[in-house]
């Protein structure tokens, strides 16, 4: 199909803006807009055109707001479908954007000069008895449709969904409901007598995910992003079970603090000489809610984990503040060992880029377990690790 005329510039502008906001629009989508316009849709007014684009391009309420905001940002031509009626060249005189909302200040209404006599013909304003709130609370102004109030995170819901959908472990479990045609025919061919069909259980995704989220402190800037990430994983992955536990810095202190005294070189950050002697964390607590108000013993959470559960830890590992803390490294190691002992595949997602890990606790943790930055590629590699793909670390636990 050849395009006889190039698209008007506002369409390029619009599509570019929407693509920047993460809407995967392409040639097909522009072609369908052209088709719909040719069929007579969206021609009544600019709002009508905006609603047409919403219907064609948006796929959720958030995307609808993004499309509407993008429309308010670009200069959309005013349709002139009615040729007979001349559009007025100047806006009507009442089109004062501030009129009517009480914000306009007239310089003549300012304080009067002191020597001037007040007008005598008018009755003096009498004080009125009022009850409750005397005035309306001040308005913050009118709503600006060009402002996008939908949050945009570094990873869109689609990207997160695509990555985490790959976490699959299809197993036939449950009641036998599906017909196994091959087995039925095979049995009939072998025995030669009429027999009941062979049924097998349906395939189900049995992958389980345990998400441990570091909260507060240096993770505060990432709260909303991590919440968005977890909501997207929940809605996208058809996992058997997703458990989320929250903690601050570490779920608990390791019992083996005395090991720190045995380190041969107090100035070396590595725990390697005593690594094998760190016992798995048996105490400590997680929280069920992101505000850290509903405690839940860490040991109980680990007990509920079945072998093969994927565990992912979302934390900066001390990289945000940039310090190094041997005690935290020891506690973290104990936690990781407890998860490993329960049979989890463990991976770490760090919201900070890899360049910031060096010289911090996070850099040391990354030597022991696979740590990836919280990016698209990082998530893919993390899911690979959780699926059982071997990842080489410098000094495995």
């Amino acid at each position, binding site marked *: 199909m050849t395009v006889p005329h190039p698209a008007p510039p506002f369409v390029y502008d619009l599509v570019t803006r929407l693509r920047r906001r993460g809407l995967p629009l392409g040639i097909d989508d522009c072609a369908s807009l052209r088709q719909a316009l040719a069929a007579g849709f969206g021609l009544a007014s600019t709002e009508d055109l905006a609603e047409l684009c919403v219907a064609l391009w948006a796929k959720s309420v958030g995307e609808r707001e993004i499309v509407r905001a993008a429309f308010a940002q670009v200069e959309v031509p005013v349709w002139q479908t009615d040729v007979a009626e001349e559009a007025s060249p100047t806006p009507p005189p009442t089109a004062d954007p501030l009129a009517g909302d009480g914000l306009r200040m007239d310089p003549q209404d300012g304080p009067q000069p002191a020597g001037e006599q007040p007008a005598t013909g008018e009755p003096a304003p009498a004080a009125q008895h009022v009850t409750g709130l005397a005035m309306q609370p001040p308005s913050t102004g009118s709503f600006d449709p060009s402002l996008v109030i939908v949050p945009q995170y570094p990873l869109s819901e689609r990207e997160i969904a695509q990555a985490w959908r790959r976490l699959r472990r299809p197993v036939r479990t449950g009641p036998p409901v599906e017909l196994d045609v091959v087995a039925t025919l095979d049995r009939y061919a072998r025995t030669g007598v009429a027999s009941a*069909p062979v049924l097998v259980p349906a395939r189900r995704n049995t992958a389980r995910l345990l998400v441990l989220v570091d909260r507060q402190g240096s993770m505060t800037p990432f709260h909303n992003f991590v919440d968005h990430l977890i909501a997207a994983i929940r809605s996208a992955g058809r996992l058997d079970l997703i458990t989320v536990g929250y903690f601050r810095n570490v779920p608990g202190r390791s019992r083996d603090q005395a090991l720190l005294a045995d380190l041969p070189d107090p100035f070396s950050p590595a725990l390697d000489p005593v690594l094998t002697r760190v016992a798995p964390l048996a105490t400590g607590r997680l929280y069920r809610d992101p505000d850290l108000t509903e405690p839940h013993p860490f040991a109980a959470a680990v007990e509920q984990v079945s072998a093969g559960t994927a565990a992912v830890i979302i934390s900066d590992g001390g990289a945000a503040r940039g310090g190094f803390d041997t005690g935290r490294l020891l506690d973290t190691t104990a936690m990781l060992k407890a998860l490993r002992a329960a049979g989890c595949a463990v991976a770490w997602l760090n919201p900070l880029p890899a360049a910031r890990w060096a010289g911090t606790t996070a850099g040391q943790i990354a030597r022991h377990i696979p740590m990836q930055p919280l990016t698209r590629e990082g998530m893919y590699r993390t899911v690979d690790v959780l699926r059982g793909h071997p990842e080489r670390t410098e000094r495995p636990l």
Partner: protein
Amino acid sequence: MQTRHRVDTSTWFDATARLPATRLIEATDADHVAAANPPMRQVSYEPYLATAELQAAVNLAIGLGRPLLLQGDPGVGKTRLAYAVAYALGLPIEQAYIKSTSKGRDLLYTYDAIRRLHDAQLGGRRRGAVDDPRQYVRLGPLGRAIARAGHGRRSVLLIDEIDKADLDFPNDLLRELDELAFEIDELPHARYAVPADRPDLRPIIIVTNNEEKALPGAFLRRCIFHYVEFPSSAEQLDMILQLHGIGEAELRREVIDVLVRLREVDLARRPGLSELLDWAGFLQAVGVPAGEIGGLPYLGALLKQRGDQGRAVERLSHP
């Protein structure tokens, strides 16, 4: 050029048209689609108040031949729209209610391999049927809609709660929705298709989604999107109640007043339109006087959680 890619605006859904109380529409409960003279059925009028935006979205979906994807709060009337469109256009409606075990192929056809094997094993009287595999194929809702188009008749297809199914479900239907044609693997030469030169026979597909799971992008790309808003004004609610046979103006006003105030309360599950209609319909049927509605009688029809009921009673009794 695929059928889907042709624009056809010959069919126009007019939400404001006056419609008769019953209509004679082709029955859809038969397993097979008759080539001619299909059985007819009396269908009664489906009251529905569609906004201008919703009507535009429906017409856009019909014109472009794409599925209309409806989202919105539960009980806001997503499913009923399909019935209203089918009634307004006088078309038969095929319904696909999606379950967690639904497979994409079920929408097209099911092949009863067990029964055929059984018949083959038993032999005898049913022997002749075994040689004809067509006996064991049953068309699904989408399959019937496409087969009906092959006979020159159009249908409306409702795919309800598509997010209940497995992730692969929408993806498995991409090709069939694109080409509006399918083959039956078990029957070597069986092919059903909407005639390529007849865009006016494309099934009108309405998909509802409760956003429990994210749908795949490839499927979403092919849809027309509309978010069904809860009616914003008391006048709209009044019209909807009136349309559904709540005759007493006083009762309507009281009921709407309660609902508007309830929706301001922070409830775990805010009452939707279907709950409102249930509640108001029952109040009218048992003849509760309008003055007593502020006391929230028969609240169980409106609020389905104990905590919500307590909060509502507390809030509405102390304004």
